[in-house]
């Protein structure tokens, strides 16, 4: 009986999460004019790859893809290193200014300078028009630091003490003892960072919009989406009539959604195996 309820509830959850995705996939593979008629659920009614063809017809997508991959990899690695270092320091009870630094960090979670001051700061730091602007400004996120810190706090401090007795210095403790134990939380944070980096387009738009060599995938897709949007003021009514005969936004939107999601789906299983706690069970005898 318990098994039955268990299976039932889990099945409902699976259906509820998988269905929207399949629906998006089906619409993205459906003829765009036909989509308007509605009623597409799991299978495309008039199969076509034209929507994907439209998207991949844009050559700028390749540069965008490269930069997106680069910023995701570099941003995630640097973000992990800096957040975990800071978190480790803050977790040490013998660090005297930990209170001050914690408050200082927490402040950034509640207050920010607003778009214009941030832009001016970036300009004065000469970061505008560089690749660094994708990675540096967001390299330490207070939230991530606190998540990692509370994980480290949960680790037995005795492990660090025993390492010290064995002659390890602070960097060694951090690298050889703390980091390996933190794998589950690091995997989680890595996923946050990677998804965030992969999905962001607004920084490209604000800072690097006129640098085609630094464009990102999401930014390019955003532009394509625009081109299918109707009612742009640049076209007059006579042109609009012609525009109407082309691809409808709905199918293109869905195809873009798929293009954006698939890489994350591919990466996810590789990170998933780290999402297991309990590695420290039995590490210290009570």
């Amino acid at each position, binding site marked *: 009986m318990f098994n039955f309820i268990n299976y039932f509830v889990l099945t409902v959850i699976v259906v509820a999460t998988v269905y929207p995705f399949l629906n998006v996939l089906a619409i993205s593979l459906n003829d765009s004019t036909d989509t308007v008629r509605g009623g597409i659920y799991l299978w495309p009614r008039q199969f076509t790859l034209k929507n994907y063809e439209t998207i991949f017809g844009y050559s700028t997508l390749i540069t965008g893809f490269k930069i997106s991959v680069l910023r995701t990899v570099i941003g995630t690695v640097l973000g992990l290193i800096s957040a975990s270092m800071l978190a480790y320091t803050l977790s040490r009870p013998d660090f005297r200014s930990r209170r001050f630094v914690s408050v200082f960090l927490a402040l950034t979670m509640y207050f920010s300078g607003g778009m214009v001051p941030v832009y001016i700061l970036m300009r004065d730091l000469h970061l505008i028009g560089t690749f660094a602007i994708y990675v540096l400004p967001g390299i330490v996120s207070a939230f991530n630091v606190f998540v990692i810190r509370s994980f480290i706090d949960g680790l037995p401090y005795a492990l660090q003490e025993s390492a010290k007795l064995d002659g390890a210095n602070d960097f060694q403790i951090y690298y050889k003892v703390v980091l390996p134990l933190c794998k589950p939380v690091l995997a989680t944070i890595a996923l946050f960072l990677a998804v965030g980096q992969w999905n962001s387009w607004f920084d490209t738009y604000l800072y690097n919009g006129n640098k085609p060599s630094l464009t990102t995938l999401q930014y390019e897709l955003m*532009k394509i989406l*625009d081109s299918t949007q109707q009612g742009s003021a640049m076209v007059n*009514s*006579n042109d609009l009539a012609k525009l109407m005969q082309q691809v*409808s936004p709905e199918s293109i939107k869905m195809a873009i959604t798929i293009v954006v999601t698939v890489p994350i789906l591919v990466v996810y299983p590789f990170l998933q195996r780290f999402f297991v706690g309990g590695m420290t069970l039995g590490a210290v005898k009570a």
Partner: protein
Amino acid sequence: MKWNSKKALPLLTLTGVVLLAGCGGNNGNDNAADSSSSPASAGPTSSSAAAPSDSGTKMDTTPITFTFFGADASPNWNNMQDEVGKVITEKTGVTINAEYDVASGGGQSKIALMAASGQYPDLIFAKGELGKLIDAGAILDLTDLIDKYAPHIKAIMKGSENRMKYSYDDQAIYSLPTNGGVGSQYFDATGGFEVQLRVLKELGYPQIKTVQDYENVLSEYVKKHPTTDGQPTIPLLLNGDGWKRMITITNPAFLATGAPDDGEYYVDPQTYQAELHYKRPEERDYFKWLNHMYNVGLLDKDTFVEKDDQYQAKIASGRVLGLISQEWEYGNAENALKSAGKDDRTYGHFPVTMSDQYQEKELQSAGVDFWGISITKACKDPVRAIQFLDWLASDEGQVLINWGIEGKHYNVVDGKRVIPEDVLNAKVNDNANFTKTTGIGLYTAFAPHYGDGVKDPTGNYYTTNFPEQIQASYSDAEKEALKAYNATTWKDLWPSDLPVKEWGALYNMQVPTDGDYQVIYQKTQEIVDKSIPKIILAKPEDFDKLYDQFLADLNKAGAEKMEATYTELVKNRVKLFTGKDIQ
């Protein structure tokens, strides 16, 4: 060296904190705005008074690059590597390094950043955000530049010179109107009230002039055919999803009562008093009619609960007899009908009014009044910039921008410009790639230009749109209906020869961005969004009470104050545009 905790811990922290510095935005650096205004020369006051009067021949064509920002998206922009772009560079020496806004942002955030940081491109197409840049002192007054260096622009703008000026109080020319064609004609009417062609045919093409005619047609047909393809027939469908309620529900209220489209306002053509159009007594009758349509079951009861895609799907199913909308609003659904071969389920357009005493003014022209391109203070060489724009505005430039290169994108046959079959094919069926490689259509908004239906000295149209095309694109069912109404296009049913609006296109008018105006406007919009569905869905006996309540709510939100501000702006505009003296 041995690391011990006293040294290493602060070091580790420091590493973190230094890295953090990048993301903390609140560092108090925000008043740097004015520090970096560009050192470029202060305007065009330089020597060359004896300017080339026929700029085409003597123009400096040494290579120069201008940066440009466009507040509209232009996804096919190809950094001037397209065929038309190369010719432009060759003829003028100018390369444009362009950046366009994305996500239908209208340039809002980007232009706010420019105004705050003082970093401007050389040329900018700022749309509704121009005011911010002018306030920041970033835009050059073009009056003298046009006078000295831009004979072609002057020729195009002849008769509309006043309409280039910014405002009554500041009569400088900050932008050239480029977002529309001068002298542009409507070839067809795509709005009004829509009726399915099969309905018209079955009822013998009845006269449809008033809402009563319209109602009779719909109810008569639905009585005969309560179902379509096995599903219930829907006599009248409107779209209440978000801003589209303006297109299908509230704008038709003034169109059906003889007022032109001035957004949410009505402007009295004699006194220039502006008021929210809902306040006109005539419109109460229109909403009363909608209320009646709902209560007799002709208006679809899901109007205010369904989303846009459900609305489109219903139209695409072919069972909706009547719409009150614009063709672009339901075009996707109509395309679906066409591709399914159901041409008789598409729609004809009629200028329907409340009664014979009104004239439908949907097609009344606002005249030349467009957003446009500006030259900023950062521009290295404003003279070259205006000469570049003027070249684009020349006959040679306009033909190049619209038609492309002779012998490649069009041929001249017996003095007529003709687009070869294969080029036309690529243009229609693969428009994105066509635009990217040829550049046709990418440069239209850079300079003032003539609109559709205007002929150049050779007797050809400047643009590639002309009336014959529209007629050729009609389906047989549509042609049959038009013939029965003795018309060649739907436009023929509309009244013509309406005077040009003296106040231009009010959606282009800069309204106060600070103070009460915006707040009140938002409030009134919320009241409209909330009240209109209630009024239409009310029981007939409650209608008047609710409508009174609606008007009272508007005034309570401060509508009168807002209208007074707006009236003042409209009057100044009329004074500026026409030179009339108005109190």
